[in-house]
């Protein structure tokens, strides 16, 4: 078809505008399995560099665990490579339903439906269970995938200020006339690492007859005493109407996601959610790996316990060194730099020191809140964290931000 020069020029102009704005995303090629120590080619064509990974979602260090890899191999042998069908035609194996049962048990819900990804789960869930007579009320910092799902749904949408329960209550009152109300939040917020106040949200839901949906992608497997998620930490197991989560982070890190919750809501997704209906589900090899992950997590809390200790050690080290951190107690520890360029320069200097950690800035985070988001793993040993801390301190000294307040850093570098 036609792709004349003027169309090519149009897109080249758009790409250049992204580059000129300093927002161009460049991939770094990793030549080794995902782990605490990785071999990276960056920029493209550069010799491999051994670095410590401080920015993966491999919270439990299971992405390359030998038992998980072995289970995936066995699954590949016994169930094949692909299904060549969507679930409801001829794309459902016994192990898909088995994983749904395991997730239901693990999360303490009534039923579960697998999706190709949690992005797909979030894209499909709202339109499957809500109509134009209903309202969705979401936290203003929810993940982009929830926002996309909300956009695809005909129900009215409103927001409340981040974790502001009084504001949420005002919104529940404002929309009291709606047929159904659904409150929507992340369990752990991915950019800040803080936890939703699910106990208060459940109480508000009960007071105003509102359902609650929680995306627990940055929690499942390690938040709460036995790693069930934010609902376990907040003491509201069995009271969340819908949990969406991913297998692409702590739970093996390959791909896939699910909707888990009230039986009828899950059934509506099975009947109506378009990413479930019109896309192949998770490949058998991945399902086999995740089943092994669930077996490992159900047998012992050793990995989440180690992660909790690692995260506390890391947070304490950075605090004592004089960095400005976002408050929290999860493995997501954002080091606040406020200025976008500083976050990029800081990240580059860390890389030169053998530490892989990425700077985030607007529009991924609000204007003037640029940061290095560090993420801790059970795959980290104390020597990894000590080396990373030395590098952070060295780079922090170079940019003269240690012991400085938010205002002082902004004064030096601007917003």
């Amino acid at each position, binding site marked *: 078809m036609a792709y004349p020069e003027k169309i090519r020029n149009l897109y080249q102009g758009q790409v250049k505008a992204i580059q000129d704005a300093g927002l161009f995303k460049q991939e770094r090629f990793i030549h080794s399995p995902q782990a605490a120590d990785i071999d990276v080619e960056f920029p493209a064509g550069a010799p491999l560099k051994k670095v410590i990974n401080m920015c993966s979602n491999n919270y439990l260090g299971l992405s390359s665990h030998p038992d998980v890899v072995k289970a995936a191999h066995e699954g590949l042998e016994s169930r094949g490579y692909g299904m060549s069908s969507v679930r409801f035609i001829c794309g459902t194996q016994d192990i898909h339903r088995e994983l749904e049962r395991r997730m239901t048990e693990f999360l303490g819900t009534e039923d579960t439906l697998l999706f190709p990804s949690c992005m797909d789960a979030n894209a499909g869930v709202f339109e499957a269970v809500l109509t134009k007579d209903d309202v969705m009320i979401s936290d203003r910092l929810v993940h982009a995938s929830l926002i996309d799902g909300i956009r695809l749904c005909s129900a009215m949408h*409103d*927001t409340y200020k981040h974790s502001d329960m009084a504001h949420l209550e005002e919104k529940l009152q*404002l929309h009291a006339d709606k047929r159904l109300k659904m409150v929507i939040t992340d369990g752990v917020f991915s950019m800040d690492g803080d936890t939703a106040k699910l106990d208060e949200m459940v109480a508000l839901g009960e007071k105003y007859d509102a359902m609650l949906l929680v995306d627990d992608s940055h929690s499942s497997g390690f938040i709460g005493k036995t790693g069930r998620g934010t609902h376990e930490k907040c003491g509201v197991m069995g009271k969340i109407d819908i949990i969406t989560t991913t297998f692409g982070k702590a739970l093996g890190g390959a791909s896939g996601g699910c909707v888990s919750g009230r039986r009828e809501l899950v059934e509506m997704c099975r009947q109506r959610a378009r990413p479930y209906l019109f896309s192949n589900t998770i490949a058998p090899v991945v399902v086999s790996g995740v089943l092994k992950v669930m077996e490992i997590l159900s047998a012992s809390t050793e990995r989440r316990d180690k992660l909790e200790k690692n995260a506390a050690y890391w947070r304490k080290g950075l605090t004592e060194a004089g960095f400005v951190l976002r408050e929290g107690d999860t493995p997501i520890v954002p080091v606040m730099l406020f200025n976008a360029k500083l976050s990029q320069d800081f990240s580059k200097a860390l890389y030169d020191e053998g530490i892989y950690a990425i700077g985030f800035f607007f529009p991924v985070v609000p204007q003037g809140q640029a940061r290095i988001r560090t993420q801790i793993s059970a795959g980290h040993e104390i020597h990894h964290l000590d080396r990373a801390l030395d590098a952070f301190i060295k780079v922090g000294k170079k940019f003269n931000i240690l012991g400085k307040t938010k205002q002082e850093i902004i004064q030096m570098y601007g917003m």
Partner: protein
Amino acid sequence: MEGLKDVILQYVTKEYLEDDSEPLNFDTPLISGGIVDSFSMVSLKRFLENRYNIQIPDDKATPEAFDSVNKIAVLVEEFVGKKG
């Protein structure tokens, strides 16, 4: 309608601004200026409808019509006028 603009300004400030934000005036661009996103517009619309007992049709509640306190006041006055 006396005080209408002040009521809107006060609501927008409380609803959308963070504590350390620059104060608004009647002409500050709200949506094109990134202060109110199109999602969050719905609560402003519902607030106005409840407060002034009017119905603003969705095709009138456009991002352009909600882009400043002055513009919103014009829209609300149109429907309050129709009601009377």
